[in-house]
């Protein structure tokens, strides 16, 4: 709860500074809108239905793109972890592609597919696939070799090893990687939509710029950030948390939890004392 209070205070302070800058009158209100203007633009956007339509269009694209990235990335990452020569060859390409902003594919994508969803999808997929690949590869590589040996001496086949040991052992780090990949996908989508006018938030930004409606531009930016945070909070954080709790990894800021995790839980210790 203290964290929530701190957070609220922080944002209230930020808006206050913004308002003060606006009130100082240094910049034209046309270029530098006030928090109040943005707020009413936000409400207007939802009331008139432009924002909900954009949310639907953008989310639909990002979900499809992310699912494709997930499968491609997991496939490539697994292959890299399994075969050294794949890692030595494909691995360098993956690393290189990660330093290329995916929007650089937009000119090609638009030439190949025209002004279509497919073009944007390509940008989104190329924006997040390599991040999923890296996460999957790292996840598999970091599985303690002892787990593999332990399973082998219990008679595991290669398939059983993959299904019952390697995948579950790599899961925490893969999920953490997915969280990052999701934000890459979302960012690539916005960039793609800015360039290709096919609806969604990116295009909305462009439209408001053309009509010189700065409050709405900022309002759209606020919604983009909010959706990014919301998906993280609703999908990825709970997933990550539940896995970490099960594994006994506590990355919480509460230290006591960490200390407890190293000793048997109090209730169990008591039972053990009784048992002996």
């Amino acid at each position, binding site marked *: 709860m203290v964290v929530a209070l701190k957070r609220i205070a922080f944002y209230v302070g930020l808006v206050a500074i913004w308002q003060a800058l606006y009130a100082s009158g240094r910049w034209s209100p046309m270029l530098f809108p006030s928090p109040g203007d943005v707020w009413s633009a936000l409400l207007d956007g939802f009331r008139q239905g432009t924002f909900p339509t954009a949310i639907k269009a953008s989310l639909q694209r990002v979900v499809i793109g992310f699912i494709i990235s997930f499968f491609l990335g997991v496939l490539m990452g697994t292959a890299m972890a399994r075969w050294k020569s794949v890692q030595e060859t494909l691995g360098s390409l993956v690393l290189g592609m990660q330093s290329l902003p995916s929007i650089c594919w937009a000119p090609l994508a638009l030439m190949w597919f025209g002004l279509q969803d497919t073009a944007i999808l390509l940008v989104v997929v190329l924006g997040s696939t390599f991040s999923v690949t890296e996460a999957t590869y790292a996840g598999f590589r970091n599985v*303690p070799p*002892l*787990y593999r*040996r*332990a*399973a*082998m*001496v*219990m*008679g*595991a*086949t*290669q*398939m*059983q090893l993959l299904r*019952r*040991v390697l995948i*579950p*052992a790599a*899961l925490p780090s893969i999920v953490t990687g997915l969280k990052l990949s999701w934000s890459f996908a979302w960012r690539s989508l916005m960039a793609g939509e800015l360039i290709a006018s096919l609806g969604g938030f990116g295009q909305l930004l462009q439209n408001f710029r053309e009509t010189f409606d700065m409050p709405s531009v900022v309002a759209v930016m606020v919604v983009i950030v909010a959706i990014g945070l919301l998906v993280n909070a609703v999908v990825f954080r709970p997933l990550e948390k539940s896995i970490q709790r*099960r*594994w*006994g990894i506590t990355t919480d800021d509460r230290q006591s939890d960490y200390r407890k*995790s190293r*000793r*048997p*839980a109090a209730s*169990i*210790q008591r*039972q*053990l004392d009784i*048992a*002996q």
Partner: protein
Amino acid sequence: MSTLGIPAPVRRWRDAVLPQSRALPAERSAPATLRVRSVTKTFHGAGGLVTALDDVSVEVQPGEFVCLVGPSGCGKSTLLNLIAGLDHPSQGQLMLGGQAIERPGADRVVMFQEPALFPWLNVRDNVAFGLTLSGMRRAQRYARAEQYLELVGLGQFGRAWVHELSGGMKGRVALARALVLDPRVLLMDEPFAALDAQTRDRLLLELQRIWLETGKTIVFVTHNVREAAVLANRVLVFSARPGRIKAEIHIDVPRPRELKSPEMLAAANRISAELESEVTISEEQEMATATARNFASHGLLWRL
């Protein structure tokens, strides 16, 4: 089973996909003698070829408790890995019950120095893991898992998560996980080395009790002479570089043995005596080789 007549690629594929023994515990637990025949194992080390094991022969009868003792680097863990099928000998042969050991299998389960429990499974599923692999039905494997958790004194902890356990409890779970498969040979690679002294003592006595109850064949690697004295019927003392068996000590103290009885101390001293002479020798050897290396690198000629 003869491997003759099976084309090499098929055999390689089979080796990769199938473990050596997928039989259910009841079918493979028939007593079997473990035979290690003139096994040599060399590794490519930093300074060239290292001989970890040199012409080692051991025979372990069903129901025997054998301890392998020696200074670090004497190849005792290497021998255990060879028996487990995790590694292949450079020369020689390993047989269990008349069948050559080629790859890992549930008839030779290893308990490692670290418990290596899977954190994504609860205690009961960890113990039942090997049974899951062999395709046993859930109700049956849970019943067996509970039975073995009971045996190691953790009957009520089936639902606990691994991170909730203490080090000693993890060791017990690892022991239950190995025993539940009813292996022909249980291989233990310094399983208690990472525990504190008190917990280790308690687990030693527990292991003795469990061995008396189950009559398992156990090969136990340790560098702790007291552990060997309490547990073993027979202690094999290894010499280092190259790893050879230099002494065999039979310990006839009746069971159940106590940790601090005079006979126990005497037995421990007998092992120590063998071991200490060995450690000194290997230290002297080390100094001799170090000196030789020194001369070699600085050049003997320059000094003359």
